[in-house]
């Protein structure tokens, strides 16, 4: 250790010039200080004494040796310290990121559109309105809606559903995954596996999408090209339930389970799954 600092830089050229491999090894160099005349001056002068005299003679040399040796522990402590600070720093950063309000995490998703910032009136909350409703955003992300919500207990719909019911599901905290009808079957299967059976999620094809896949939460939208896109899981994790403006207790069951884009609210007795009494 003590030799390495002064001897290091000078030893390398000798190895390159001679091509002798044994000379590069530290023990070999210390044992044979006379192997290279040029290299032994700084290293060889101290080396033998440090090894032999360290134990026997105390008066003079130990002072120098202890100075030289202390670099080892210092380097070690610095290394351990840097490592520790790094670990703590990464941990703290992860905790900080995880503790960010969900709105911030949502805004950090690349490509997400935050209508809560763009259009505050739109996302305030939606009153019930019967019949067909025109939405400016496609697929819609907020606004008035029919009084019945689309069932959103991880339902997978194989045909398009009515916006007027789906928007009510969004209000209750659902992430609505939509895909263009021409999306390959294996891609649809991947989306299905993310949604099926999980409350506050639903999946349906959607006619006229400008991208293969579009995700909606109340006031948020993200469009992606591929079911393998990591942002899909990020969007779902961040906005499912969180995006509900009625808290985590809004109901997803007892909604409309039928497909078809015509809203059913104007048909009074056409509510599916309702007890008859």
């Amino acid at each position: 250790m003590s030799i390495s600092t002064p001897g290091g830089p000078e030893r390398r050229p000798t190895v390159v010039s001679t091509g002798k491999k044994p000379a590069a090894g530290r023990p070999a160099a210390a044992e044979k200080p006379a192997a290279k005349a040029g290299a032994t001056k700084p290293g060889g002068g101290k080396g033998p004494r440090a090894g032999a005299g360290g134990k026997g003679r105390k008066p003079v040399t130990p002072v120098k040796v202890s100075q030289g040796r202390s670099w080892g522990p210092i380097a070690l402590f610095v290394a351990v310290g840097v490592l520790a600070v790094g670990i703590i720093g990464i941990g703290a950063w992860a905790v900080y990121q995880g503790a960010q309000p969900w709105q911030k995490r949502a805004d950090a998703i690349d490509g997400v559109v935050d209508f809560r910032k763009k259009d505050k009136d739109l996302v305030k909350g939606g009153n019930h309105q019967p019949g067909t409703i025109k939405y400016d955003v496609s697929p819609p992300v907020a606004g008035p809606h029919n009084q019945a919500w689309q069932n959103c207990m991880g339902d997978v719909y194989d045909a398009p559903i009515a916006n007027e019911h789906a928007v009510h599901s969004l209000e209750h905290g659902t992430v609505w995954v939509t895909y263009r009808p021409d999306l390959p079957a294996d891609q649809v299967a991947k989306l299905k596996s993310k949604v099926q059976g999980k409350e506050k999620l639903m999946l349906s094809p959607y006619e006229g999408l400008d991208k293969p896949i579009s995700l909606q939460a109340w006031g948020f939208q993200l469009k992606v090209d591929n079911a393998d896109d990591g942002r899909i899981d990020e969007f779902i994790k961040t906005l499912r339930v969180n995006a509900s403006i009625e808290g985590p207790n809004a109901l997803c069951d007892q909604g409309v389970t039928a497909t078809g884009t015509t809203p059913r609210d104007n048909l009074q007795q056409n509510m599916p799954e309702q007890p008859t009494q």
Partner: protein
Amino acid sequence: MTAPVTTDSELDEAPAADEGGRPAARRYGLLAVAAAVAVGLLLGYAGGLLTPTLTRPGQNSAEAGFARDMTAHHNQAVAMGLLAFRQGQDAEVRQVGVDIATGQQGEIGTMQTWLRSWKLDPTGDQAPMAWMPDGAGLVKNGLMPGMATPEEMAKLRAASGREFDVMFLRMMIQHHIGGVHMIDGILAEGHDDDVLAVAQVMKNTQQNDLANLTAALKRLGGTP
């Protein structure tokens, strides 16, 4: 570690000689610093442990009063909502009924969890609404604002058809108006951030409901 401290050449034989006081003093100094650091850490840890206990809402706090009274208030809305889900004729009455029932039951869970985490009983011995400054004046026949009497609940249970729908909508509108008043009370009196955040969501939901209940009542030709 100790080698660099004693590297001064004169001190080589010091441990055995008469000058042994200086390193010993240094060692005691180090020990004292270490002890002080340890005590400081322990005090900080104890402080950290105690702070939540000392600052959490107490037995007579507005937060505890709200959690208990709103649990009772919500319980009646759950009962009314489930009646609407079972007996309502109008589709929207049934739909709103089940939404209110499950939503408020969920909120009851939140409020009861608060009380448990504050190490308080689920119910208290204070009069209803005592946590609100003008609370006592709002209580009629022992009922909190907007709550239906047992007779009204019996009538609702016995009703059917459009009569039930209109009666339910009227009662739930009154219930929500009273509920929003109580929520305004905790928003004014409360200090706990979590309680305030949840109360705000409750208020948003009930105000949203109120708009829809009122519109439904109008659609069915009833008067408030």
